[in-house]
């Protein structure tokens, strides 16, 4: 029989205002096993914890129940408290009488009754708890960064600087990510390439960093400290050790019809290509879908012109398997497909562009060599209309519900740059709200309005159509003057929402990291653990976690790196003691459990057992407790109930059911 102490927290008035804490104490005193019960204002406070420790010692408690806030909040706190008083930390159960009771019920009688029942369930469970010992596992001192944009690069460089080897896996032929496509950055207006390319080079040359570009993560197994990752290095059909990046092949390639992704398909590139001049690695890649050789077996011009003999049509995908202790996800974002927003004529009129396309148009390496031109006739525009929140902050199925965060600032940047360079161009911005929280952000925006006379119109655009003169008509509302307005313009720029990269879902599944309904990766805690995923050993960097600008991305990348370094600095990790464990005498050896185990933690051995004096060799399941994460899938797959989960055993859960249904 356990000796159980029950500690009821008032949480100030958070609990005590709705739950009669005295009544709860009285009610639980007669529960089986309970030999001490007390309430206190703040159990999590030093004094509250001291109260628990004293009670444990004084009453020789073997288990405690704390009726308080969610276990997600303070379970760890009270486990530590118990441990300090000499009690096994797994002899602690929390009855969640705040989030699940006092905060959602108003009637005191009702809430008190429920609190008593929740306490009873926790008591029933703790009656069956057994001390658990956490195991240990080694840490592989190597990190993997998925994504080679600014987020991934910064995390990798910081980890590498701390002395740990890092591998970056980037799916495209070069690192650099979206930032490489940007022209200038707000609010300082410095050139994106100027600040990014040194980082790219630094990563490439860092002795602790290995780049796997044009590569993808194929498979992730294992767990924190011990991930086994399979990386696919896609065939470039160019030997990167020989290629000098001279770009002769890319110039001579006769297949030139396909769009150039780097320039948002506003111009074209060859089938063999280097995405942009500063690409790292500066190595050509053959796009087999466009290459004449791959389609017809003929051509081969690139092979002929390559003096380094780097072209290799026979190259195969290569697979690399590597062990990592930690993984940083920095998969970034992409622009929302705006074809669904056809009231803005995006698919019909070339002068309707997204902001990223405008970024390329304004860039010296872009399709117009940096001159602002209408894409329809390559003429100088006189009026430009910006439409904000396209696909952001909406509530229809084509919209994202969230604010993409960066659009207000980059639109101000675009407007300002255009007015600076081409003072003759009139710039109008249709906005819902202008959001500028950030250092020097509001000043930047006000400069656009006040100094550059950008016409900000509060209101949304209803539709855009092409006029007979080839210009565009924009119909919108000005909510301030409360009138409909009609503008004639040469270009329309859509501030399209940003969304997580498509591949993130697949990566999240492989990593068993959770994603939210918008496919952003979920952090372990929105406030207190913002760069960790709930899956131990997986960290988040950049926009894959939520919209953010470059400085925020870089700081999060650094934070993620610190977390990784903190993890890799450990020699041993404490493993979750709530693992599955088979009862040898009951195991049938049927393999059902192994089939549902997501971690491959279950193996079979032929072992002699002594079944009440009868000795025989049986096929038995064994659980590798370092691999087991304690999901419990096996426990239900097992018909005999031989497989049980420590800390959440069949009996414990059924005892809770019994206690609740009483």
């Amino acid at each position, binding site marked *: 029989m356990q000796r159980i102490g029950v500690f009821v927290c008032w949480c100030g008035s958070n609990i005590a205002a709705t739950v009669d804490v005295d009544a709860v104490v009285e009610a639980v005193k007669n529960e089986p096993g309970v030999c001490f019960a007390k309430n206190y204002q703040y159990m999590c406070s030093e004094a509250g914890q001291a109260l628990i420790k004293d009670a444990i010692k004084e009453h020789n408690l073997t288990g405690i129940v704390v009726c308080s806030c969610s276990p997600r909040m303070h379970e760890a706190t009270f486990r530590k408290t118990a441990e300090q008083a000499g009690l096994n930390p797994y002899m602690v159960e929390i009855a969640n009488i705040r989030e699940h009771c006092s905060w959602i019920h108003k009637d005191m009688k009702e809430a008190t009754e429920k609190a008593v029942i929740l306490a009873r369930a926790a008591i029933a469970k703790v009656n069956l708890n057994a001390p658990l010992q956490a195991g240990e596992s080694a840490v592989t001192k190597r990190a993997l960064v998925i994504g080679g944009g600014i987020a991934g690069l910064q995390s990798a460089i910081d980890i590498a600087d701390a002395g740990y080897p890092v591998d970056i896996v980037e799916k495209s032929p070069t690192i650099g990510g979206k930032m490489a496509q940007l022209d200038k950055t707000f609010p300082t207006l410095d050139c994106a390439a100027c600040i990014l390319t040194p980082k790219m080079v630094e990563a490439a040359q860092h002795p602790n960093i290995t780049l796997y570009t044009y590569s993808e993560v194929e498979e992730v197994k294992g767990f924190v400290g011990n991930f086994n990752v399979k990386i696919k290095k896609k065939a470039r059909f160019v030997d990167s050790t020989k290629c000098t990046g001279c770009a002769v092949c890319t110039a001579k390639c006769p297949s030139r019809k396909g769009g150039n992704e780097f320039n948002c398909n506003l111009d074209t590139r060859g089938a063999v290509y280097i995405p942009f001049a500063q690409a790292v690695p500066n190595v050509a890649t053959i796009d087999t879908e466009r290459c004449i050789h791959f389609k017809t077996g003929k051509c081969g011009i690139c092979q002929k012109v390559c003096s380094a003999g780097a072209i290799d049509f026979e190259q195969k995908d290569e697979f690399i398997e590597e062990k990592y202790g930690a993984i940083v996800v920095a998969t970034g974002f992409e622009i929302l497909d705006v074809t669904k927003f056809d009231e803005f004529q995006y698919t019909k009129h070339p002068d309707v562009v997204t902001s990223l396309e405008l970024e390329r148009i304004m860039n010296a390496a872009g399709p117009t060599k940096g001159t602002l031109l209408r894409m329809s006739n390559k003429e100088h525009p006189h009026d430009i209309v910006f439409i904000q929140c396209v696909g952001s902050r909406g509530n229809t199925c084509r919209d994202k519900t969230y604010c993409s965060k960066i659009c207000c600032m980059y639109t101000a940047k675009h407007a300002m740059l255009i007015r600076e360079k081409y003072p003759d161009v009139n710039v109008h911005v249709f906005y819902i709200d202008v959001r500028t929280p950030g250092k020097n952000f509001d000043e930047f925006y006000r400069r656009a309005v006040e100094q550059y006379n950008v016409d900000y119109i509060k209101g949304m655009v209803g539709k855009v159509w092409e006029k007979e003169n080839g210009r565009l008509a924009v119909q919108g509302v000005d909510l301030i003057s409360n009138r409909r307005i009609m503008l004639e313009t040469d270009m329309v720029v859509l501030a399209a929402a940003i969304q997580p990269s498509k591949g993130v879902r697949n990566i999240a599944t492989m990593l068993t990291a959770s994603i939210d309904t918008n496919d952003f990766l979920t952090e372990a805690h929105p406030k207190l653990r913002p760069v960790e995923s709930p899956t131990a050993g997986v960290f988040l960097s950049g926009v894959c976690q939520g919209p953010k600008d470059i400085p925020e991305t870089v700081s999060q990348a650094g934070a993620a790196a610190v977390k990784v370094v903190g993890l890799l600095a450990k020699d041993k990790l404490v493993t979750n003691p709530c693992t599955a464990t088979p009862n040898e005498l009951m195991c049938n*050896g*049927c393999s059902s459990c192994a089939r549902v185990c997501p971690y491959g933690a279950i193996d079979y051995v032929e072992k002699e057992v002594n079944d009440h004096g009868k000795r025989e060799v049986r096929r038995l399941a064994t659980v590798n407790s370092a691999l087991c994460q304690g999901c419990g899938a096996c426990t239900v*797959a097992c018909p005999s109930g*031989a497989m049980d989960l420590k800390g959440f055993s*069949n009996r414990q859960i059924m005892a809770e059911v019994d206690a609740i249904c009483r």
Partner: protein
Amino acid sequence: MQKTAGLIKKRALELLADGTVTKVLGWEEGDFIYDVTPAFFDKETIDSLVFSSFCGSNLSKYLIKACKEQTEGKILVFLKPCDTFSFNQLLTEHRIDREKVYVVGVECKGMLDIEKIKALGINGVTKVIDNGESLNIKTIYGEKTCERSEVLLEKCTTCKSKELVVFDEVLGEKAENENSQDRFAQVAALEAMTTEERYAFWQGELSKCIRCNACRNVCPACSCMKCVFDNIQSGVASKSNADTFEEKMFHIIRAFHVAGRCTDCGECSRVCPQGIPLHLLNRKFIKDINELYGDYQAGEEAGSRAPLVNFTFDDAEPSVIHERGNS
């Protein structure tokens, strides 16, 4: 039938004699023709090995224990087509050792049910002669006849297959599976009822349960070292049903535990002393699995992955239960 019986005995003798097998698992004759008992035979006892239209019992489960005890040589087992599915399923679950068993598949045209004969009012049965189409029945009250098709075991009226899915050799003449009725017709009929009608039906049937555990103990899928219902630690252990809930609990959990593993051998219904149509529980799961997750026949292929230890990303949501049905 007579001919097959002769072949079986001859073959058993040959295989024992040439050392292919060291013992034989078959059926032993009883006092009446219908009361054959599963038994192991050796050279000395093989004389009492029989095969008749009353050899409905599925011998595969006996191999679990027999394989454990078999140290040298093989065990000869006679399996009817439906029994071979159970054998495969046991192989899948590593309960038996293929290397230790010599499977002689026996073709089958459906086994007979003495209960059905008696239900026709034919009492005092001492002998049944199977003429292939009709039966000559000797009783202490005189001679009677009946059609073979009238008195097939329930499981044989809805035979799932006449294919032997695993064997080392085959004896007898292959039968056609032509008269078999739709295996899921009874389940569908129940599904078509209203909730209240279904409740009344099952309440009536399950309340007959005396918890003798014959269904469980005969079931080749119910081969746990220790059943949850016998395990006082499991929280659901029970003996005789003290409440109608316990009947339901036992039968639901039993059906759930064998879901996706049950080969539909029909033994549960055959052995139930209370005549509860237990196969209709298992078949409901089989029907659901086929409809929701694609056709799957447990035991058809050794090593296949059972539907409940499998999934696809776009499986039906549990709310599908709310969406279908008529009431």
